[in-house]
C-alpha cells in the first residue's frame, strides 16, 4: 500500500505527465506556424518536415506587413488592424452590456413568457447561417448599411443567443440567497444586478468578452459580404491577400501575417484567463 504522501505525489506526477503530452500536441500548430514564418519560401512545407530552418528569415514579418502596399499606396495591414481594433472594442462593449442584462433576465428573474422566449432563443442558434445570408443582406441594404461597418457591430448591442445562453447557465448557478439578501437590504432589481450578480459573474463575463473579441477579430464572412472598399477591410479579410490563383502561396508570409493577426488574441486571452479562475473563491463570499 502506498502512503497518503506517495499517493498524492503519484497523482501529481501523472497529472503533470498528461499535461505535458497534451501540451505538446496542442502546441504543434503554433510551433509549426512560427517555424514556417521564419523560413525562406523554398524551405516551407518540405518533406520530411523540417523543424529547424537552415536560414532564419526575420524579414518575412516586415514583408508581410508591407505586402501589397506598393500598388495600394498605403500599408494595408496597419489600416486593417486599426479597423479591426475599433470594431472589436465596439463589439465587446455591446456584447458584454446587452448579454449580461438579458442573461440576468433569463437566469435570475421570474417573468411571464420567459421559458417560451428562452426556447425560441435556443432555436435561433439551430438555424444554419447560410440560409439567412440572402434575406439578411437585403435587410442591411434596406437600412442602407452595405459598404459600412454597421452590419458588423450594431447587432452585438442587442445580444446574441450563444452568450445569453452561456450567461444564463452561470447566473443560475449563483445561490438565490445572495440576491434575496440584497433585496431585503432594499436593493432594486438593477441594484441586485449591478452589486451582486455582476461581481460574482466576472469569470463568465470575461469569457463572453474574450469570445466576442475572438469572434469579431476572426469574422471573415461578415466583412467579406458587407464591406466594399479595400481601406475598410479587417485583418481576417486581409489574410486572403496571400492566397493567389496562378502565382502560388507565399506560405512564409502567410504564416507571419497569421501569427501577427492571432498574437493580440493570444495576449488578450493570456491576460484574461487569470480572471476566469478568480471567481467566487476570491471575492470572499463563500
Amino acid at each position: 500500500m502506498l502512503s497518503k504522501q506517495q499517493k498524492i505525489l503519484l497523482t501529481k506526477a501523472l497529472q503533470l505527465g498528461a499535461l505535458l503530452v497534451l501540451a505538446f500536441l496542442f502546441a504543434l500548430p503554433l510551433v509549426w506556424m512560427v517555424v514556417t514564418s521564419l523560413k525562406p519560401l523554398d524551405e516551407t512545407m518540405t518533406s520530411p518536415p523540417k523543424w529547424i530552418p537552415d536560414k532564419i528569415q526575420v524579414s518575412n514579418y516586415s514583408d508581410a506587413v508591407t505586402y501589397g502596399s506598393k500598388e495600394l499606396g498605403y500599408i494595408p495591414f496597419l489600416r486593417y488592424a486599426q479597423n479591426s481594433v475599433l470594431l472589436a472594442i465596439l463589439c465587446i462593449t455591446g456584447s458584454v452590456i446587452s448579454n449580461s442584462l438579458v442573461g440576468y433576465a433569463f437566469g435570475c428573474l421570474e417573468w411571464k413568457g420567459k421559458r417560451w422566449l428562452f426556447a425560441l432563443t435556443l432555436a435561433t442558434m439551430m438555424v444554419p447561417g447560410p440560409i439567412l445570408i440572402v434575406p439578411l443582406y437585403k435587410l442591411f441594404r434596406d437600412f442602407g448599411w452595405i459598404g459600412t461597418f454597421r452590419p458588423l457591430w450594431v447587432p452585438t448591442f442587442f445580444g446574441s443567443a450563444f452568450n445569453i445562453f452561456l450567461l444564463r447557465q452561470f447566473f443560475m448557478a449563483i445561490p438565490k440567497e445572495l440576491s434575496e439578501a440584497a433585496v431585503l437590504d432594499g436593493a432594486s432589481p438593477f441594484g441586485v444586478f449591478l452589486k451582486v450578480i455582476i461581481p460574482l459573474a466576472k469569470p463568465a463575463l470575461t469569457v463572453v468578452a474574450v469570445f466576442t473579441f475572438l469572434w469579431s477579430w476572426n469574422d471573415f464572412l461578415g466583412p467579406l459580404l458587407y464591406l466594399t472598399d479595400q481601406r475598410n477591410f479587417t485583418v481576417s479579410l486581409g489574410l486572403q491577400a496571400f492566397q493567389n490563383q496562378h502565382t502560388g502561396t507565399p506560405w512564409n508570409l502567410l504564416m507571419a501575417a497569421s501569427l501577427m493577426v492571432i498574437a493580440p488574441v493570444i495576449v488578450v486571452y493570456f491576460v484574461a484567463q487569470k480572471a476566469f479562475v478568480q471567481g467566487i473563491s476570491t471575492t470572499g463570499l463563500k
Partner: protein
Amino acid sequence: MRSNRQNVIGLLFASPWILGMGIFLFYPVISSLYFSFTSYSILKPPVWIGLSNYQELMHDEIFLKALSNTLIICAASVPLTTALAICLALLLNTKRKGISLYRTLFYIPSLVPTVALAVLWLWIFNGQYGLLNEGLSKFGIKAVPWLTDPSWAKATLIMISMWGCGNAMVIYLAGLQDVPQSLYEAGELDGASAWQKTKSITLPMISPVIQFNVIMGIIGSLQTFALPFVMFPGGQPARSTYVVAMYLYDNAFLYQRMGYASAMGWVLFLATMILSLVSLRLGDRHVHYGGGA
C-alpha cells in the same frame, strides 16, 4: 403568482434581445422558411411549390449520404470533445507553475482561423511522411491512409475537431470557479478520494455548464462546414466527408437552388432540435442548478 411588476422588470432586462430578434432575426428566419417552400434562385423571385423541396430531399441520395455523414461525425465528436475538454479543464484548474501558459497553449488551436490550420492538418495526416504516421511507425503500426480512405477520412475529421475543444474548456474552467471550496473541504473530511470528489462534487456542480457545452457541441458539429470544405473539397473520397452544410452551400450558391438549400437548412434545424431535446431530457435528471430555479 408573479406580479405585473416582476413581468415588466423581466421584459425590460430582456428587451435588448427581444428587439434584436425582432430586427435582425425575425425577417431572415421567416423568409428562409418561406423560401423552403419555393423554387428560388436568388436573382429570380421565388415561386411557391409547396412541399416539393421536402419531398425531393427525402429521396435525394446525396442529401441522405451527407446527413448520415453529419450524424456520424456529431455522434463521435460531441462525446469525445466533451470528455477531453472536461479533463483539460480539471487538469488546468490546479495551482501549478506556469499554469497560465498551459491554459493559453490549449486554447491556441481554437484561435487560429480554420483556413490557416487546414494546411497543417493535411501535413500532419499526410499518409507517407505525415507526423502522425511517422509517430505510429515507431510503435510498429503500418501507415494509415488518413486522407484517402473513406472511413479514415471521417475519423480524421473527428480527431481534428478535438483540437478545437478550447472554447468548451474555457467555459468549463470558468464553471469550475463556481464550485464552493467548502464542499471539497467537507469531502476531504469524509476521506473521499480525488476521483470520488470529482464524480460526486465537481461534475454535478458544473452540470449546467456541461449541458450548455453539449448543446453547443451538437449545434456546432451538425453545422460543421469550414474544416471539411477546406480539407476535403467536394467531400472526397467518394463523398465520405460531404456534410449537410457543404451540400447546403453548394445548392444555395453554386447550383442556384436557394429554395432547396433552405429546405435542407430547416431539416437540419429539426435534426438539431430533436438531438438537443433528447440530450436535455437525458441531462435534466443530472443537472443541478445552484440557484434552484
